[in-house]
């Protein structure tokens, strides 16, 4: 579904990602973990066409998308829920969904919107309220709902659990799991490592802009160097 090969990317003259290889299969949940500043968010922004790519290729659904405009990439069915949600605060809940409807298939706005409201009933209740009035968890739901309006084959989620209460996290992850079961591919960046490794089929560990470790989520979870990577006991440098 998604194939990232030897990707080099960054911002201005600052290179953040070095020779990153990442694969996501159809219906697969792939998680990306690693300490702050490792390049996780940059990986997602590079895939969506939002930052500078200086080398490597990105292929999605059989076509190369490297260097394409972000809106074109989104229309191909690759949606991105950015870190910090970035919903339109001054628009109503429903207006956020209208703005996100790109008309990728013949399914109309109403059908897609109702599907989002079925998944997140609280959004239907708040449909005419300002998005800025939503709680953090509801804003995350709206961000996911908005991504769904683009009818994606692959959804990228950047730290969806950030700052949310455990109950809400469970709710959001159960929906992500359902989406994956319905055939959607998921690329998930998550700071909560154990959570990520429970949910994921496969995992990549990024550190200092490089993939240090990858494999099935079970293998990565069992790797002795994982805790050290976060708490600074020893370095993952020689592991991969």
């Amino acid at each position: 579904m998604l194939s990232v090969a030897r990707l080099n990317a960054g911002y201005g003259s600052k290179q953040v990602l070095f020779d990153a290889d990442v694969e996501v299969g159809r219906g697969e949940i792939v998680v990306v973990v690693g300490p702050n500043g490792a390049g996780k968010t940059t990986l997602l922004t590079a895939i969506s066409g939002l930052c500078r790519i200086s080398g490597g290729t990105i292929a999605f659904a059989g076509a190369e998308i490297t260097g394409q405009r972000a809106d074109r990439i989104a229309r191909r069915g690759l949606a991105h829920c950015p870190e910090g949600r970035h919903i339109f605060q001054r628009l109503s809940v429903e207006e956020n969904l209208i703005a996100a409807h790109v008309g990728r298939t013949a399914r109309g706005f109403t059908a897609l919107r109702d599907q989002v409201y079925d998944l997140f009933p609280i959004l239907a209740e708040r449909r005419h309220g300002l998005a800025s009035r939503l709680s953090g968890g509801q804003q995350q739901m709206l961000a996911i709902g908005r991504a769904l309006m683009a009818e994606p084959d692959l959804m990228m989620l950047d730290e969806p659990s950030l700052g949310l209460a455990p109950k809400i996290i469970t709710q959001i992850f159960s929906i992500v799991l359902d989406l994956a079961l319905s055939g959607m591919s998921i690329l998930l960046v998550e700071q909560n490592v154990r959570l990520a490794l429970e949910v994921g089929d496969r995992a990549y560990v990024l550190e200092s802009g490089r993939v240090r470790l990858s494999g099935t989520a079970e293998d990565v979870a069992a790797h002795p160097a994982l805790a050290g990577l976060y708490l600074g006991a020893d370095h993952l440098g020689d592991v991969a």
Partner: protein
Amino acid sequence: MSFELQNVTKRFGAVAAITDVSIRFEPGQIHAIIGPNGAGKSTLVNMAGGSYAVTAGRILLDGRELQGLKKHEISLAGVARTYQNIRLFDRMSVMENLEVCLYPQRTTCILADVLGLGEAGRREQRLAHCRRLLDRFDLVPFAGVEARNLSYGRQRMLEIARAMVRTPRVLMLDEPAAGLNDAETRDLKQRLRHLRRPDLIVIVIEHDMDLVMSISDHVTVMHRGQVLFAGTPAQVQENPDVREAYLGTEDELDAIRSLAQRRKAERRLRQQAGAV
């Protein structure tokens, strides 16, 4: 000298970012504040520096209440900081970035007047002070360069130098290693170690655990807006609660784990069905 947060709380609307946090910082020490994303670390610095008003609680420097003061008043009281995202005066030279911070300072003028120095002499004094500081950060060769033309690593150094130009009593560094490469981080580590002075409190917020554990005398771990644990670097590394905070807790996991396992089982079934 003492710098203290007493029962500090910060709410943004309905969201509690910081709940009843008390920390006492000791002079002569490097004090790190760590914690997972969203733990409230930067919010603490933003309150201590006057960028955010506290919702409740007190911030005390030598018994003087700083909460409610304006940013520049807090700076004049001796609390300096750097930012997660570098905020230099881009179009000013390296030297000017430091010098401009000294202009409202009157105390040196009195000394200069006694010595019979005119404005020219006072300026010379200020420049000499700035040059000594630039020297500590190996920035003297770049004194005339516009800040925006420095490498990212040197911009970070300049930001720390600038924070020190008024000889603060409290120096807060918000993620000084963010965006630095390995060599620059090693260099930063050495420089931060040399910041220790008996009359200075250094507070470092940082995600780079190698850096934190090797330079800090004391570490406070924040989690969900509260102090989770405080102790020496070794105590922090061994503490099971800290490990959980970083790697996730069991409670949170249980519900999601069963959902995830159900999905994996279902997925395997479907794959087998597809293969047949």
